[in-house]
């Protein structure tokens, strides 16, 4: 295209230098050769330029502009992808929240940087807690259904070992409690207990993750368990044992953490 125009334009421009004003607009490409000889025709030169430029304004290289914009956008996308990818790769200590968990409606995630063993009562940043310092003595979380509320400090150590904790409001109808127990009984890395002052009927906890809901038939319960049981990406002590037979036989009570087996 461009080649044809320029070749065809040259003869006309050369042939009629005097015609330039009238011929100028009719065939746009004539502009180029003409502009190269302002010295030959000094007077025609100045008025030529505006005419030519306006023609060019109307003929902005839209193809080129579009290509440039697209390529720049594409470059930005590629660079962004590279940056996010490497930032993910280079920091193994900062795992992003699990998409499988956070995509479940209502699930919250908070980073829990503390996990020291601390004796006595501990103040937590969530109720029920989803992580933090805890007792050295972990809750038995081998599919254990506790009939009474247990201490946060022992429960959190179970979360650290990758357990999912189902808490429910005291006084929940027995049929609902039994329905919840079906998610827990016989399932390693699961435990369940009533929780005084719970703001909903039911809450689910895994290290860093929490979900409040009201119905034991809510499908999000199983989704939460599927995504977070064992919690391999987030918990700092994934894989440590959940069995604690002495705790199962003699559990702690709410507000009274056990530091070692009760005798």
């Amino acid at each position, binding site marked *: 295209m461009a080649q044809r125009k320029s070749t065809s334009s040259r003869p006309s421009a050369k042939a009629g230098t005097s015609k330039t004003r009238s011929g*100028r*607009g*009719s*065939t*746009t490409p004539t502009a180029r050769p003409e*502009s190269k000889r302002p010295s030959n025709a000094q007077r025609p030169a*100045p*008025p030529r*330029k*505006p*005419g030519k*430029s*306006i*023609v*060019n*304004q*109307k*003929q*902005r*290289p839209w193809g*080129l*502009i579009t*290509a*440039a914009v697209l*390529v*720049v956008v*594409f*470059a930005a996308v*590629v*660079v962004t*992808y*590279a940056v996010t*990818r*490497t930032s993910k*790769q280079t920091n*193994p*200590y900062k*795992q992003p929240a699990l998409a499988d968990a956070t995509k479940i409606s209502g699930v919250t995630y908070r980073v829990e940087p503390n*996990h*020291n*063993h601390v004796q006595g009562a501990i103040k937590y940043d969530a109720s029920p807690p989803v992580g933090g310092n805890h007792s*050295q*003595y*972990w809750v038995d979380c081998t599919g254990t259904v506790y009939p009474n509320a247990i201490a946060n400090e022992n429960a959190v150590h179970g979360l650290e070992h990758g357990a999912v904790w189902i808490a429910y409001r005291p006084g929940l109808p027995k049929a609902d409690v039994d329905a919840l127990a079906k998610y827990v009984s016989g399932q390693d890395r699961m435990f369940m207990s009533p929780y005084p002052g719970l703001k909903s009927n039911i809450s689910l906890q895994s290290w860093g993750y929490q979900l409040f809901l009201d119905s034991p038939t809510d499908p999000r319960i199983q989704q939460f368990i599927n995504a977070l049981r064992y919690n391999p*990406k987030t918990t*700092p*002590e*994934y*894989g*440590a*044992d959940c069995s604690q037979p002495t705790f199962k036989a003699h559990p702690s009570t709410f507000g009274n953490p056990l*530091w*070692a*087996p009760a005798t």
Partner: protein
Amino acid sequence: MGPSDITAVADTEAPAEPEQTPARRRPLTVILVCVLAVAALVIAGTTGWLIGSSSSAPATVTESSVDAGFARDMSTHHTQAIEMANYARDYSSDPSIKILARDIETQQYFQLGEMQGWLDVWNLSRSSSEPVMGWMNGHEQLTSDGLMPGMATPAEVNKLETLTGKALDIYFLQLMLRHHQGGLPMAQYAAAHATQPYVRLLASKMVEAQSREIIQMEQLLREHGASPLPAPPTTH
């Protein structure tokens, strides 16, 4: 069609803006071409770098990789921790020591299984002719006994396994603390340099868990009125 429209526009508007836009076409074109060229370079560079960095996480893990070296040497390191914890869990009479021992033992057993699984999947054997700790590229050295940093000598393990009561608790804490102190830089190095993301992840978990257990064991030693053994030398 087109040319006639342009003519009309050119004829009517030409006098209106006489000097505003001299020779605009060329700068615009030049700028656009430059933008295209730069963007193309950026894309080429980034893509090339992405390909390069993704090929640094290859599907196959080689015999001499950080991943394989870490999996093998940390397995050996873990196995000794499990043995010592196993003994303390069974023979200590201090509930805190027994709980700590089980926490360490079961956690490291699980990690050991994970590392053995990797070696299987990588089609690599448990033993290798690669030099022990060679994967750390000089960042940590073997002890004068030829052991990995923090490892107890066979004599020390044998001694532990004759003890009971408070003597057992203190010696267990001392050996396990030094064991963690030696293992920590191995896990840190793997967390930073392993090619596979899951290897870096597990190594980072070991760093997190063991650095907390170090704090706990130091505290328990103080409570038992004892001091730590000299820490393994660090080359960092």
